[in-house]
């Protein structure tokens, strides 16, 4: 199928389905939305293994800004994951969300549309526009269907990311202007800028600030350690499908941005700042894990575990080694699957008993054994048990960053303690919920029905398939990583 039709289809299907669900009758809204997500998933799937695709049309001719879409394996795998999680979320929401269902589904598809557009974007400003546009549907999703103090959480989420990315806008524009001043031509397309600035690098003092503005925006999105305080609130208060997409995809846009834009554009300053950023990631791993252990709310525990897991990803990225990068990208995908499954599972019991307190549950192994099997498998995958998807990414990241010249092996050892800490808080969660006497809330929990099997089995199958035979994903990741690394300066390779 021609590139343009495919790429435009990829962007327009969710946008149109957002409009359709807004206008469709309330009665069958769940089914319609699931079918539309299914169409998007199949549409994305049809490109499996295909070559890169390009397409661009003018956005703002006078300033050389174009809607330029570029699909390579980095963006493709994330789009596939996003459409899969989107399909599962629509399916889940079709029975879980009752009030204002139409608005819910419509906002959900709008969120999908902006995510996919953001991932396809190759023009820096086009990427920035949808990097921001994603926040608005998420803002409403958390705000309207969220938990108790959702207003605080959603305000904090939006302002935090909005502030960070505005500074990136300034960095972006100064890059765009410097290019114009040196070549007299307006363009913000990433390959042009990268090729140009690899030959004529900017003076380190200015490049440093531009790089830092990029890193600030993506660090808040990832979230990197000091900027992570919005994540637990946003995850705890978001509705189930919202927190699945938030954890599964939105966090990955931050790391995707780092790998796609920030590091390739400014390799020198990336090398200069690699060590402090690695130290921050390691802090994120350790602090995220020990704080997760102290949480009383299930979703907040999983949120802090995401901070810890994404600490691994950023460690892999900033170690600037090929193995580290491959591991980081694979960890992004597997974290999306694992944490998505965990949030669905927590949502499963939350929708029945409306309580997220860990103390409120106990002895579920006797009331809902199948749920416990799925819960234990997902938790073990998040702990990083070999044979499941969590381990492969984590191992490659640690192995890669151990080889890296930029980060001191001591920090990688500290990061590896994260392996122990993740076991501590995950087993703590499993034990408190699944084992022991059947306590208060656990009495009323009903086990898996047919639709839950349909919802969770694809995720668990993915966990095992990536865990035991990761190369069906790793090969395409490796291609793009080696391509990006080949364009990096000699010092990095």
């Amino acid at each position, binding site marked *: 199928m021609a590139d343009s039709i495919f790429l435009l289809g990829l962007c327009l299907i969710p946008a149109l389905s957002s409009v359709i669900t807004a206008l469709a009758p309330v009665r069958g809204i769940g089914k319609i939305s699931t079918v539309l997500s299914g169409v998007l998933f199949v549409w994305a799937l049809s490109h499996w293994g295909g070559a890169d695709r390009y397409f661009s049309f*003018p*956005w*703002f*001719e*006078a*300033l050389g800004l174009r809607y330029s879409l570029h699909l390579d394996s980095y963006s493709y795998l994330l789009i596939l994951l996003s459409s899969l999680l989107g399909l599962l979320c629509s399916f889940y929401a079709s029975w879980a969300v009752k009030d204002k269902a139409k608005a819910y589904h419509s906002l959900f598809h709008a969120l999908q549309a*902006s995510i996919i557009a953001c991932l396809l974007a190759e023009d820096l*400003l086009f990427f*920035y*526009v*949808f990097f*921001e*546009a994603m*926040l*608005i549907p998420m*803002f*409403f999703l958390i*705000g*309207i269907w969220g938990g108790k103090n*959702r*207003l605080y959480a*959603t*305000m904090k989420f*939006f*302002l935090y990311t*909005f*502030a960070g990315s*505005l*500074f990136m*806008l*300034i960095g972006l*524009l*100064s890059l*765009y*202007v410097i290019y*114009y*001043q040196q070549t007299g031509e307006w363009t913000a397309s990433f390959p042009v800028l990268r090729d140009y600035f690899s030959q004529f690098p900017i003076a380190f003092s200015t490049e440093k600030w531009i790089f830092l503005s990029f890193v600030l925006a993506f660090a808040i999105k990832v979230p990197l350690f000091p900027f992570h305080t919005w994540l637990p609130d946003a995850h705890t208060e978001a509705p189930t499908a919202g927190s699945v997409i938030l954890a599964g995809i939105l966090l990955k846009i931050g790391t995707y941005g780092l790998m796609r834009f920030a590091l390739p554009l400014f390799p020198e300053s990336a090398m200069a700042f690699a060590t402090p950023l690695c130290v921050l990631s390691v802090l994120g791993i350790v602090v995220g894990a020990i704080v997760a252990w102290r949480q009383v709310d299930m979703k907040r525990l999983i949120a802090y575990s995401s901070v810890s897991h994404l600490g691994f990803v950023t460690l892999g990225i900033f170690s600037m080694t090929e193995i580290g990068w491959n591991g980081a990208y694979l960890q992004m995908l597997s974290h999306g699957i694992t944490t998505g499954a965990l949030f669905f599972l927590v949502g499963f019991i939350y929708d029945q008993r409306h309580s997220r307190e860990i103390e409120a549950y106990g002895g579920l192994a006797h009331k809902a054994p199948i749920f416990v099997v799925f819960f234990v498998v997902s938790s073990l995958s998040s702990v990083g048990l070999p044979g499941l998807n969590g381990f492969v990414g984590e191992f490659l990241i640690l192995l890669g960053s151990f080889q890296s010249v930029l980060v001191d092996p001591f920090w990688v050892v500290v990061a590896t303690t994260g392996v122990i800490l993740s076991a501590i808080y995950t087993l703590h969660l499993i034990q408190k919920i699944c084992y022991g006497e059947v306590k208060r809330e656990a009495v009323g929990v009903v086990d898996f029905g047919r639709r839950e099997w349909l919802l969770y089995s694809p995720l668990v199958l993915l966990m095992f398939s990536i865990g035991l035979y990761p190369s069906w994903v790793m090969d395409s990741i490796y291609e793009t990583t080696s391509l990006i690394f080949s364009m990096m300066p000699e010092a990095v390779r």
Partner: protein
Amino acid sequence: MIETDLLAEFWRDSQVAFPVWSWALSAVIILSLQIVGVRRGVSVGAVGLCLLGMIVYAIWSFDPALNESLYFGSVNWDPLAQSLNGLALVISLGVYLMSLPGLFSDSKLFRLNYHQYPEFLTCLLLSGFGIAVAVSAVDLTSFFLGFEALSIGTYAMCGFFRSQIRSTEAALKYLFVGAFATVVFLWGIAMLYGATGSTGYADIAATIAVGPEPLVLLACIFITAGLAFKFALIPFHFYAPEVYDGAPTPVTAFMATAMKVAVVGAGIRLFWGVLGDLSHLWLPMWLALCVLSILVANVWALQQRSLKKLFAFSSISHAGYIGLALLVADPSGSEWPLFPVLSYITIYSLMSLGLFALVTWMENRDEVFLIEDLRAYARKNLGRSLLLAVFIAGMAGFPPFAGFVIKLMVFQALIAQGYVGVALLAVVGSIIGAIYYLRLLVSIFMSSEESGAASGWSGMLDRLYSIRLVVGLTVLVTCIGGLFPNVFADRIFGVLGRSSVNTEISRDSSE
């Protein structure tokens, strides 16, 4: 005995500058209709027709190459003047459509005050005439005349709801503080005249180029202060919140947008045309004022309880952005310096026009429109709250909407001219701005308490669909402007921006 050639020249100039004095002509027509004692509806319809006719003529007669100085050098009819005059026309039509449903409203206030509705429209047209003159003035006298016509027209319009103390008080405040500002302007003009000995911009610029006098410094200060007052930048903004809150909402819309159009036109000609060489004097002052107003206005708006006061402060911060855009409209700066300022003023005017039209539609004129009245407004009237959400997102500058594109232009121009620090401060300002906009969205869509008073109001009975027309068009502009800015940006501003506006401004390109 008047030489016939003078008369002939006057007649020829009038044909070219028809759009300028057509405002006054239509005002005269309306007044004469009133004198004849025609029914109120007919004269109101006539105003609509005149406005439409003027817009059609402006669009038809738009000629980027046209650049003539008319009326013996007092006015210069060039693309800048034509486009801003067109914008003023659109704004006046918007205000007219917004105030139209007042005729059919059954509330005592409207029935009592709408007897003088045609006179109100005459003031509107005369203010428009003031804008047209101010925008195209290249002589101190016509500049002063334009601004005064605009101000006095607006004082009268503010006080339209005679039976309501809030509207009268707003008019009173606006008149006295405005009058003082006029005195400041006059001092500026007097000193400029005193220093250079002539009133034409071209001559003044020439004398300044030869050797600037100390008196010109004082002139710069007073003129900057005067323009800053009309823009309502921070130290001079005190009248704005109360006057915007008290005045009838259509008039608030007119003040928030049309005043800025006039100031942009006059500012470009004055700052870059006349005082271009002295930019080291007035530029730092203007920069400080703009940055101050972006930051302080947004902080000031955090604690406002009245909705219209909130939008007043937001328009002050937007004035700061327009000021920054004006700042970078330096002819020697980029190849089309006017692009950011004109794109900003147009999109901003249309957006706030739509926003205030929506407010007129929702508000209940008898009591102050507080923010908590909007609590859980989306529960009952989802449509209007969605429209409000679009406008709020536009005004706050969230990306997919047009508000972001115009801010992008300003930031890009700022950084291109090296003002990176200023751009950072502007960014901090828009972050603070996002806080109170988000609070508004949160209280409309997400609050779980019982809904505020606003959901109870029936709002303006929009029988002629006039308000819905204005709101619909402006929402379209906000959305399309964001996703596909190419649609209008390239054609209108590219042309204007690229063609050198050959008033004194673009001297450099000719030298």
